[in-house]
């Protein structure tokens, strides 16, 4: 093989930056001059953020009441006792009285909270049929196998909505009454039961089957409600836009919780006189006690809370930011010390050389 400077050997590799691994590169050195300002700035920013979060969380009012009805905890005990034998007595009611010395600023949200309820249990959380819930008529009558044993009734009728989640729908209901003056009449506070679920859920993910002759009931013909339900799904609410699969209580329930202790939004208070919050006075929450929790050692709570830009009352996030911010600054100082020490040493070395 003759070879000269111009002729290229047949096997000579390409002399490109890529093949020679000489791509133009930036090799950042994590020098202290970059890291230190970074840490101090980040620390300051985080502390600021943490303070903001903390104070906004601090400003949020929360009012909660455990109405599980363990013996001696209130007037729900009676209902709770009745609950012992697992067949919830119909229309057991109890009430929670509370008074607000000052305005509970709005918008006020009403939650219910369950504890020790494993909505995230695998067997439980797969027991649903999203196809059915998305309103496909074919799926309506043929629930998925995951729903078993809440797939079909003993009579053979398919259950709509099928599955364990739907069957265990939270069915306590609350009404809020306000007594402006002591001894005065209780006025019902309007609870807005819409807008409590994700918009995409109740407008996209959950759809009712197409109406038959303009009637939702006919659409659900040939299905049976879940065993625990006293009413069929199309009677969940009298509001035709809030009944069936797109009933927002139902949608909220079907969005299973991540943890065994969870809150779910029940209603928003934003109408009439109560749009700015709950004025001071005495309140009565009338609870229809249906849902048994004492069997598995759970609790039911009712929670009033208002909301800030960053959500509900949540001191943890703010505190966490404060801690991280201060840690940043601490680390910055440590680095500074190390840096100064070794910088000096290096300088000395250089001098020595």
């Amino acid at each position, binding site marked *: 093989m003759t070879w000269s400077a111009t002729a290229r050997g047949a096997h000579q590799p390409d002399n490109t930056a890529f093949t020679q691994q000489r791509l133009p590169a930036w090799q950042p050195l994590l020098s202290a001059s970059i890291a230190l300002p970074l840490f101090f700035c980040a620390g300051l920013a985080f502390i600021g953020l943490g303070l903001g979060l903390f104070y906004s969380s601090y400003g949020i009012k929360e009012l909660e009441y455990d109405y599980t009805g363990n013996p001696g905890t209130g007037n729900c005990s009676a209902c709770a006792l009745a609950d012992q034998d697992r067949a919830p007595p119909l229309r057991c009611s109890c009430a929670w009285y509370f008074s607000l010395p000052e305005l509970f600023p709005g918008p006020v949200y009403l939650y219910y909270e369950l504890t020790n309820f494993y909505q995230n249990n695998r067997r439980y959380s797969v027991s649903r049929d999203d196809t059915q819930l998305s309103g496909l008529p074919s799926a309506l009558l043929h629930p998925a*196998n995951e729903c078993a044993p809440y797939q079909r009734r003993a009579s053979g009728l398919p259950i709509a909505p099928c599955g364990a989640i739907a069957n265990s729908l939270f069915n306590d209901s609350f009404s809020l009454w306000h007594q402006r003056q002591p001894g005065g009449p209780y006025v019902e506070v309007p609870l807005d039961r819409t807008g409590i679920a994700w918009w995409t859920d109740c407008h996209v993910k959950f759809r009712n089957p197409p109406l038959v002759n303009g009637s939702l009931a006919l659409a659900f013909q040939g299905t049976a409600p879940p065993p625990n339900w006293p009413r069929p799904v199309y009677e969940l609410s009298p509001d035709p836009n809030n009944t069936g699969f797109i009933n927002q209580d139902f949608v909220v329930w079907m969005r299973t919780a991540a943890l065994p202790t969870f809150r779910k939004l029940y209603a928003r208070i934003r109408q009439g006189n109560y749009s700015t919050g709950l004025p001071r006075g005495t309140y009565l929450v009338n609870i229809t006690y249906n849902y048994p929790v004492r069997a598995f050692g759970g609790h039911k709570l009712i929670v009033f809370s208002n909301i800030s830009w960053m959500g509900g009352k949540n001191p943890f996030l703010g505190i966490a930011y404060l801690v991280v911010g201060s840690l940043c600054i601490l680390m910055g100082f440590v680095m500074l010390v190390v840096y100064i020490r*070794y910088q000096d040493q290096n300088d000395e070395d250089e001098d020595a050389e």
Partner: protein
Amino acid sequence: MGSLAYREDLEEENSAFTWEVKANSRAYNNQFKKSFLCWQRQKHKSNVINTAKYNVFSFLPLNLYEQFCRISNLYFLLIIILQGFPEISTLPWFTLFAPLVCLLVIRATRDLVDDIGRHRSDRLINNRPCQILVGKSFLWKKWANLCVGDVVCLHRDNIVPADLLLLASTEPSSLCYVETADIDGETNLKFRQAPLVTHLQLTSVRSMASFRGKVVCEEPSSRLHHFVGCLDWDGRKHPLDSGNILLRGCRVRNTDTCYGMVIYAGFDTKIMKNCGRIRLKRTKIDRLVNRLVVLIFVSLVLVSMALSLGFWFKVTEFKARHYYVSSRYLYSVAAETFFIFWGFLILLSVMVPMAMFIMVEFIYLGNSMFINWDVEMYYAPQDQPARARSTSLNDQLGQVQYVFSDKTGTLTQNIMTFKKCCIGGVTYGPDEEEDTPHKENPYLWNEFADGKLLYQNAALLGAVRDNEDKTVREFWRLLAICHTVMVQEEDRQLVYQAASPDEEALVTAARNFGYVFVARTQDSITVLELGEKRVYKVLAMMDFNSIRKRMSVLVRSPEGSIYLYTKGADVVIFERLHKRGVKEWATEEALASFAEQTLRTLCLAYKQVGEDAYEEWRQRHQEASVLLQNRAHALHQVYEDMEQDLQLLGATAIEDRLQDGVCDTIKCLKQGNIKVWVLTGDKQETAVNIGFACQLLSENMLILEEKEILRILEAYWETDNSAPRGKGRRKHLFLPRVKVAMVISGELLDHLLLSLRKEPRALVHNVNEDGDASWQEPDAQTEDVQQDRRLSLMWRILGVQLRATVTPQVTGSSSSTSESPEVRRERAFVELASQCQAVICCRVTPKQKASIVALVKKYQRVVTLAIGDGANDINMIKTADIGVGLAGQEGLQAVQNSDYVLAQFCFLKRLLLVHGRWSYMRVCKFLRYFIYKTAASMMVQIWFSFYNGFSAQPLYEGWFLALFNLLYSTLPILYIGLFEQDVSAEQSLELPELYIAGQKDELFNYWVFLQALAHGTVTSLVNFFVPLWVSHDSAGPVSFSDYQSFAVVVAMSGLLSITMEVVLAIRYWTALSVLAVFLSLLFYVLATSLSQSLWLFQISPKTFPFLYADRNVLSRPSILLVVLLNVSLNTLPTLALRVICQALKKAGPKEREEAPSEEVAAVEPGPYPQRGSRGRRSSYAFSHREGYADLITQGTSLRKAPALGGDVLGARAGTPEPEPGARESLRPRANTWAPGRRRPPPQDPASAEDAPSPGAPEARPSGSRREPPPAGQEDREAPWKAPFASWRSWSSGWRQRLQGPRRRAASLPGPSPAPAARPPPPGGPRAPAESVPRRGRRCPRCSGRGSPGTGHPRARPSPNAGLCAPRSPIKRGAPPLGLLSAPRVPEPGPASAWGPKHRRLGQGLPSTPRPRSWGLRELSSRDTARSPR
């Protein structure tokens, strides 16, 4: 080659002659069937080669089968099958399915591409044209059409298409020259010869067409150099052996046309049978990773079991109290627990890094490509880039601790160049730097100059042309006369064929200076001296051997006076000088300076011999040469008498040119804590010389030799046998400052390492040694006393040092008592050797090379790399963890067995320090990060289990899991594996110390693995628990307390944390890395929005349940704040750690840098005995083989009439009938091809020690298998027929055959009828030389190259042959007294001969009073230390 030889030796010769092939008769050949059960096929395969694995139909099933043979794939297949059971299916089906399919597809594609390549090359080969005899004429056909029994016509430079029986050729005697480079890697020509009968009768195409001979031979086998069969033709049987066979893959050279008959075709051919499977080498990291994966798997099982236990308690509660879910648990608690165990196993199987395997493959592949692409490892003169043949060893390149290097052709170019000379005390060096181009060639006046001599010295040339200085004249005359070079004329040019390249260099130099060696006959040498033709009558040739270390020629000049010309090692010559004057001192000075430049030197001397003296000497010589006993000794004495009172002419210096950059490379490697061992078949002096030349050895090193090594090991033995004592003292007795090097010969190795040989031979060895030493070096005994003193000091030091390091390990291990002596011996040796800065093993056989590598591997547990270029290195290359083949002129076999192919030794530096280090660093970083990533993202599943009642609910969306390892996190990590650079290539080369990290496994080991795991665990804890606590309190539309939002937040935090980690990990930011990070995030965005889109949800709501989850969740600032918190919590501490570590490390290197300089300064000559540089001067230019003096003087190989051999080769002797002598002279060669032991033992036991008659008796043993030729007649008449190319081949081969022939020779009857035959010097196996020219075929098995690498050592067929040698004659029944000493391989040969001699010089013993040499030595030692050549 040694491996082959070894293997073949072991093979039982049980093959029956069941292979029948009839010429030109396909019908007959096709009748043979091979049946297996009920399935029959042709016994003889066709010549179609199909190396491809798959065809169109078998690809899918076969490939899938192969892939599922991998345990990891099988595991995932199993998991996927398990997932089919709804009871335990915890992950969506696609989560594991999608990655596995991807993986399979990628691998299958790769296999397919490979296979298509194979198909293509097969087709190329199968479609090669060749001429096949069809009917009455030769037609062009494809190789594929060739069948067994066909007659093929081949032309010059054709490749042999199948294993052929050579029927006839156009050359005389139907010789056919072949080049077997593709088969055994030897580039020299070999010849094959047709059987006599076919040569005589198949003279035309017509006769070929009617040829119906039948060949009966063995079944196809892989033994390349073995063939036995017979040709059955016209009722007569003619024996065939491998000398008649042209193997597939050879190339026909120098032969116009030859005809052959196919015996084995296609896959039956020897070469195809030899295409062994490539042994899979695995790297350390590979093994570690496999262990880790198993570890991960085991721990997953454990975790699953623990979690199942948790479930056990929970499920009772679920069943009893949680009414809303109890109906979903229908089975008993135990059954549910059993199911959940499998559920967890499936859920956690994502933690087994499946994608890692495929990515590692990509990374290896990519790094191999970079090696292939590296322009700086491209060697333009050969158009040879570096090539990674194995793509799975790259990371190991970064961990090499031992480099075993061949010498010849690897360190050196194996080119000898005449560099300097000293004539009459005047040194003539080259005028200018040799590289600078000259305007005109100063040798143009000389028509015989070959114009290639680089050495130019105008003054010398002038002196030569003036022809006035007698010394100058005699100097060049000597060089033109005193040698054993053969000459041949080719294309009107003289071509010299020498036994050693040194000699060739000298004679060529003389030729260029006007003293042209033109021709040689049995008893004359013709020289053109400055145009004047002079014929010298050769009276005697006293050849070189390793003991004499000189060679002399006694000639009668045309004027009639008698001259003795001697050249030899300086020590030997100076001892025999007539007087010592200024000239001599000057020459000695010159020699010292030559030695300092590590040139190979030779002293030249001559004297005029009086007629009377000659006559008297001649008679004694005559007497001695017919002695029956002790002839060698007697002859030696006679020579000794003649070689006295010499007059010094001068000295020559020849450079054994190192390859470019060898010194620098070795220096770099040493700085990188890589130990370089040179394993060479060459003799000790040369090896040591090269050791100095490439700065492996230096003057301030303590060089351990045979005796010291033995002493130290014995000392070690003693102390080891007694109880280990003084543990506390060891530390400070350890002397790191002593630089020690070891020079060890193959024989000693054999002696030391019991396990390498089968029978104890220590005793015999010692006897040998003493016997030889006593007569050969009269003053050796006295020296020993001196030496002892020195040794005792040294071994005390080293013994302690050795003990200090060895004993703790040995005694520390519980097995120390149970260790066998062999093991302890081996361990002791390896420990000692590994203490040395440099180790040179000389005269080692290929097998020993491999054994040494294996020993080091065994006892040091380090990564070894072997580099070599010749076939003799194959064993070593295959044994070492990494084999590097140098693609030189030596053919391809080393390359074909290697993992990496380089063109030059110096590229090793870049391969190891740059590519190896990078690869290692990349792979380690990749692995570390991958494990971190897996842990960080997947551990949350475990934490989540605690919050969902251990119900094995996956936390992530199925698609996130499926695509996480495929798309979201792959690219940056792939970038790390492919492109990451911690330091640039230049810095890597400048700071070889950086390499040490790899040797210590610093970048990836169990500790790093645990760190990565812990880091990942922390990240996963943060990612899980921060959202958990945050979500606790919040609710409502902005909450993420629902499962999907929570999953999204954790997944998002995990992904971003991991990405941030990779951003911090990448140290080498290029556009590609930015792209990688960007793309992986983009993939997340795209894939997530796709999998959460309405469109897919409508298709299958169940498969895509996370409708708009990300969009809803991530559009809320508070949730983004949580993600930010997670990421910063994960990133900032590691960032801080990195910064702090970096600050701390800055001080580190400074301390380290000081160490080496300290070391250099600390080398004080002190009490340690110094070797004088003079010792190195003994590297005379002879190779360790003898010359051809015997052949020449006996005339076996030469025509009597002085003819410029060119015409001998001439055109095809149109006569189909050559002189019978010529035929027969070639015959034995063919026969001796087979291993020596196949030869029938000599029939007649006799007593003559050396076969005095070179011809007849020698022909006998081999010829006895065929018709015995008319004895004695042929060797006189036989012209030198073999092409001169074969000179080289047999020259390297003859040593190897020494054993056998000598034995046979010894048993032949009668004294020598040939007066010229001289017995060999004792100890030097010379006798067989006589037989060599006629049986000049080189044994390709063991002659790696024309190199010394194999020559001498292979004199002993096996490592214990040296031991057997003296014995075997006894067995044969006729042990004359002399036998015990004479045929002995020169055991103590150079090894011990060199030592004492140069010690003597170095120590300036009174016996050599050379006052000035002291000063010289010191000067030179200082100089060499300072300035490399």
